[in-house]
């Protein structure tokens, strides 16, 4: 049977293939990446896009969450101080209502409650990174202003009812703010500023009135209401850190998955490279042997 007389050139083709494979393996080894072009593993390339998307979303949520955590904590501590101030106002008013104080004492209590009202106003106007946190969507203007020209004084809300939410990568919405009017200007007897302003006016006259007793009751109700709204903020903080923890652990898992998907398995590649090299050397030897012209039968013929 005849054989292909040009088998040496076929061997050279094989040598080219071996060298191409060595090149590919070296590239994987030096970059540490298994998939350097889409065609090497199309499915993994597509999956990689989705995984990286998820990881990036988690990453950006973690950043956002630490940002809003600060804001929620400032809100919580402001509301904590409001509760302290209101408790103090209630004890002052309770003292004033027990009927033993004289006119000048009552006026002094009126002034003290006015001081507390101003303190609460400034707490309600708390800002975080230059943004007022109790103004709803109106974060650039102070949400509460008090006009003392009339009696009782009038505290106006300049914000709106807007509530912001932060969405977690899993689609949960976490409330980021409570509009100031919900906290401090609840309807009817729930209004903090209404009750404070009325008490200031009640005691300013220096006389005991039944109105002061009613207004004190209102302030008590309003305090309870503020505490309820504070729970909303606290819930958000809790949910936020829970979500943040969940996202961080998800991110860790996804990163592991992504690494497994795309990273080169160094021991395997090193082994393959070494095999390729051995094969290359063997081919070179064979070519050198077969390619030498002395192998032709002509060299054996006598002249």
């Amino acid at each position, binding site marked *: 049977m005849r054989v292909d007389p040009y088998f040496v050139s076929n061997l050279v083709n094989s040598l080219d293939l071996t060298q191409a494979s060595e090149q590919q393996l070296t590239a994987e080894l030096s970059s540490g*990446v298994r998939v350097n072009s889409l065609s090497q593993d199309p499915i993994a390339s597509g999956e990689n896009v989705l995984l990286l*998307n998820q990881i990036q979303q988690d990453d*950006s949520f973690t950043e*956002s969450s630490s940002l809003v955590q600060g804001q929620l904590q400032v809100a919580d501590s402001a509301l904590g101080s409001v509760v302290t101030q209101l408790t103090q106002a209630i004890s002052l008013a309770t003292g004033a209502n027990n009927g033993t104080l004289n006119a000048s004492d009552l006026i002094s209590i009126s002034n003290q409650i006015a001081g507390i009202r101003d303190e609460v106003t400034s707490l309600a106007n708390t800002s975080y990174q230059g943004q007022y946190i109790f103004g709803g*969507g109106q974060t650039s203007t102070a949400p509460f202003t008090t006009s003392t020209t009339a009696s009782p004084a009038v505290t106006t809300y300049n914000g709106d009812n807007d509530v912001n939410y932060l969405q977690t990568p899993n689609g949960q919405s976490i409330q980021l703010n409570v509009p100031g009017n919900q906290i401090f200007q609840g309807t009817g007897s729930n209004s903090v500023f209404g009750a404070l302003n009325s008490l200031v006016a009640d005691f300013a006259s220096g006389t005991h009135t039944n109105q002061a007793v009613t207004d004190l009751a209102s302030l008590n109700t309003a305090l309870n209401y503020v505490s309820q709204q504070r729970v909303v903020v606290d819930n958000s903080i809790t949910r936020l850190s829970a979500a943040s923890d969940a996202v961080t652990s998800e991110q860790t898992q996804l990163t592991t998955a992504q690494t497994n998907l795309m990273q080169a398995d160094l021991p395997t590649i090193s082994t393959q490279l070494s095999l390729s090299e051995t094969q290359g050397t063997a081919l070179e030897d064979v070519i050198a042997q077969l390619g030498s012209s002395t192998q*032709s039968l002509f060299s054996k013929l006598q002249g």
Partner: protein
Amino acid sequence: MGTINSAFALIAQALDAEQSGLNVVANNVANANTPGYTRETPDWQASSSIEVNGQFLGDGVQETGATSVRDRVLEERLVQQQQLATASGSRLTALDTLQALFPPDSGAGASTAGDIGSDITKFFASFASLEANPTDNALRQQVLSTAATLAGDVSNAAASANQQQAALDQEASGVSSQVNALTSSIAQLNQQIQSTSPNADAGTLEDQRQQDLSQLSQLVGINQVTTENNGLSVTTTSGQLLVSEGSSFPMTTGSVGGVTHFFLGNTDVTAQLTSGGGELGGYLTARDQDIPSALASLDQLAYSVSTQVNMLNNAGTDMAGDNGNAGNIFSQPAQVAGSAAAMSVVMTNPNHIAAAGLGKGTGDNSNALALANLGNQSIVSGQSPTDYYSSFVTGLGSTVSNVQTENTAQNASVTQLQSQSDALSGVNLNDEASSMSTLERSYQAASQVFTMLNTVMASVLNLGEQATVS
């Protein structure tokens, strides 16, 4: 009975024949490395015996020429397989360049430049960050800069794909002149073969014709039909004549709609050539199918993202107090086609990003939330932008990988057929050495017989007396 004279004549003929045979061997050795050369074997023919006095006597040998050792079926298979292999080869080269425009990102930490997938993610994530603090200037800047990266990478990829398409167009149109040179050469050879050797193998002329056919099949897909008198007609795989025996039909090119089209006579054969095979088939497949399909996907992505983002930005309130008319972030494409190449960011002032809901205070984030959610909504052909891009890269990668596999298989098959063909038709120096040795020995034997006859003749002339004639 034969005479001594006839024995002389017979052996002289044998010497001629052996010499002629040696000539064939020498020619084989001389052409051992000539591309397309088919080894020849000497044709031996025993001269017809003659009857003398009722006895049949042999009348020696004649060398009647040489026959090329070829297998036409094998050669035709090789030509067919070559056109498939070169088609997938040139398509693969184009696809490799194309897929390099979409490098896979290796990891979350090391972002690869030009990775549109991570650009999309980062763009929508920048809106998610804006949810946390909708009035923050740095976060707003971040939205514009990620938008610019996305638009830049998409338009770069589209521009590169367009350039590649133009380059392929040029390469393809260059092929036609090579095709014409080969077809006219085949036509000429046909004429020579038909006139010199209408009934038998034409030897080296056929070698040349086969070599031209082989080269032609690497350029375009062809079918060959053997005609009478050893002629050959060549058509494209879809049946348009390129060569009809002694005449060839030149392929012409012309620009149709900005791309090169190919004509045979007045017929536009571009579509047929595309699926026909050969280098041209590969170039045209990449030019007319692969690149346009990738560009269409990019266009769809760019169009949908630009349109949806612009629409939502115009449905909110920005920092400058615009209600429902905050303006476009991306330049608004008029139609899907060409959107990718034209994708750019037109917004310069980050305060015009409408993070707040329509009519709401600037501290509101509901529109930023809606914009961030666009990233997970089915806005591009029923898929989210990331899913769409993911399907796109998987699709492109699979195509490249398929063509790669196809090409490897076809090349292996070409190598195998080439090996088979070479085994049959290639010049094997060892074989030639052995034939030469054999012929040389026969020649020596014949000369020896000649010497013997000479001695016999001398004896006859001297009638038994020694010395007069030696």
